[in-house]
């Protein structure tokens, strides 16, 4: 064990795959959820299959937490890799009950090993499967099936969970039903996850780290917020650009139904159902919901005006500016995006390095990760 350096997932996959060339290399921490994001057909699912060993590209390498899964001389078969894999379609075994599906990959009672093993009852509770156990997969809804598939993967006691667009085959409502389960998993289990998706809203709610892919190549790797606020990357330029913060609940004002959240470089007031102090929540702030003011606005209905410093700016199209802000009076905090008209930019005589107030019109607060919200 290399105990000192934090565990990482190092992967480099190269080769011709059907119609396109894959050349993807990245290193991400083996903790939290890493989003593998890119347009359909950019090779992200292939990367996941290579990580699982379902696809064998020679001249590639893969190392997880110090264990070599693939290099020039080694190639571990999928069943020798301590992974869990959730496919786009649940792919439950039709000839087995839900319970037998869940237990298919579970080690025998006698070999139950490490202390942080995922318990059967815990998975049942976490994914709400208690009522489904004796049923056949044929009689389950799409969302139920996918929850069973996730539980089945978890109970095989993986050291790395791979999820290949687990929600993309589901309709909007079912997606919203499953996302909270995934958020609870994230909060409760210390299992590293690689999560493939082409849907930025899933990535924004779940991912801690991001691998951005395009046409078989890795465009950028880093913490989610860092990549979201990088004006050179497609995420920040997109019309629905946004940044996410992991916020801590400071207090709750039941009189107005507002929660005070502490984020890196400031405080936010957000309408919410009652929450306990100290709870961690993820918030999303869209670039189009942020406007800038030279002075602290005195009479305004907008709840949040946070001191910030302009870091960089770049034109978007002919008449709009994308502004990257650093929160806090000295600009030491997290990054925020604002999208302004060029006219406002000129009128306020804004420039890089200028101190401003970011007025935030809307903050989206993700539902509680403990599932009680």
């Amino acid at each position, binding site marked *: 064990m290399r105990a000192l350096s934090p565990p990482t997932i190092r992967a480099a996959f190269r080769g011709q795959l059907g119609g396109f060339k894959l050349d993807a290399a990245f290193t991400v921490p083996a903790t939290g959820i890493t989003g593998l994001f890119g347009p359909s057909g950019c090779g992200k699912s292939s990367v996941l299959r290579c990580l*699982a*060993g*379902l696809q064998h590209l020679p001249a590639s390498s893969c190392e997880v937490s110090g264990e070599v899964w693939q290099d020039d001389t080694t190639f571990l*078969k*999928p*069943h020798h890799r301590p*992974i*869990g*894999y959730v*496919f786009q*379609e649940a*792919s439950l*075994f*039709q*000839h087995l009950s839900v319970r037998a599906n869940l237990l*298919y*990959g579970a080690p025998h009672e006698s070999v139950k090993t490490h202390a942080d093993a995922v318990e059967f009852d815990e998975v049942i509770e976490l994914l709400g499967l208690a009522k489904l156990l004796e049923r056949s997969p*044929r009689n389950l809804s799409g969302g139920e099936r996918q929850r069973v598939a996730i539980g*089945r*993967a978890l109970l*095989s006691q993986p050291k790395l969970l*791979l999820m290949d667009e687990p929600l993309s085959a589901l309709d909007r409502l079912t997606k919203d039903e499953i996302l909270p389960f995934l958020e609870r998993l994230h909060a409760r289990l210390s299992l590293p996850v690689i999560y493939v998706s082409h849907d930025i809203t899933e990535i924004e709610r779940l991912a801690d780290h991001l691998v951005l892919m395009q046409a078989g190549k890795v465009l950028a790797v880093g913490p989610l917020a860092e990549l979201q606020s990088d004006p050179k990357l497609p995420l920040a330029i997109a019309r629905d650009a946004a940044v996410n913060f992991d916020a801590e609940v400071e207090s709750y004002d039941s009189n107005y139904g507002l929660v005070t959240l502490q984020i890196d470089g400031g405080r936010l007031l957000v309408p919410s159902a009652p929450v306990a102090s100290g709870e961690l929540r993820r918030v999303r702030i869209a670039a189009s919901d942020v406007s800038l003011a030279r002075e602290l606005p005195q009479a305004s209905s907008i709840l949040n005006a946070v001191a910030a410093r302009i870091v960089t700016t770049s034109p978007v199209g002919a008449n709009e500016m994308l502004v990257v802000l650093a929160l806090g009076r000295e600009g030491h905090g997290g990054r925020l995006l604002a999208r302004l008209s060029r006219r406002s930019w000129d009128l306020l005589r804004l420039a890089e390095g200028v101190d401003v107030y970011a007025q935030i019109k809307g903050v989206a607060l993700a539902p509680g990760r403990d599932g009680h919200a």
Partner: protein
Amino acid sequence: MTNLPPDIWQPVWLTIELAAITTVILLIVGTPIAWWLARSKAWWKEGIAAVVALPLVLPPTVLGFYLLVLMGPDGPGGALAALWGGRTVAFTFGGLVFGSVIYSMPFVVQPIRNAFDAIGDRPLEVAATLRASPLKAFWTVAVPLARPGFLAGAVLGFAHTVGEFGIVLMIGGNIPGSTKVLSVAIYDYVETSQWREANILAGGMAAFAFVVILTMMMLEKRTARIRA
């Protein structure tokens, strides 16, 4: 029933024994072949598939002729028989089993292969990601999911072995208790104008065939319902 020849049922039991042994051997030999045909990516696998399917189109007498050459005193079969002091494997029950296995092979391999094909890669990939070795995945996922294919293969293989005639004549002959099977017995009764006996056996065969086809169709329907 009066005046039935005492040995009229002997060919029936012999036929059932032959068909049962043949079916069991075919399931054991045919399953790996079907698996390989369904899973292999070798370009020449369809060539093997065609060889396996050959008995479907070859006249039984042609097949029987080659089997006779193969099993006769001058062929490998003769060498084999020499091991226990025989001259040939032809005209023995063992030879008949061997011929039946070859002849009925496509009827067993084809449905099982189709069933394996229908399963696709995904369930086996899922099993592998759940730490199942290829062998465990085969027994716990592929075989149960291909069960209708196994049933169809077993039924068809059994029925075809019961019904074969040309090959039996070529390599089996007509030795009571050893190679005189049902179809040959019927032929014999007709030859000797024992129409009543021929009728009993033929009628039994017809009823048997009906039950087989009905079973098959019901299995098909059940499978279709499961897949839906």
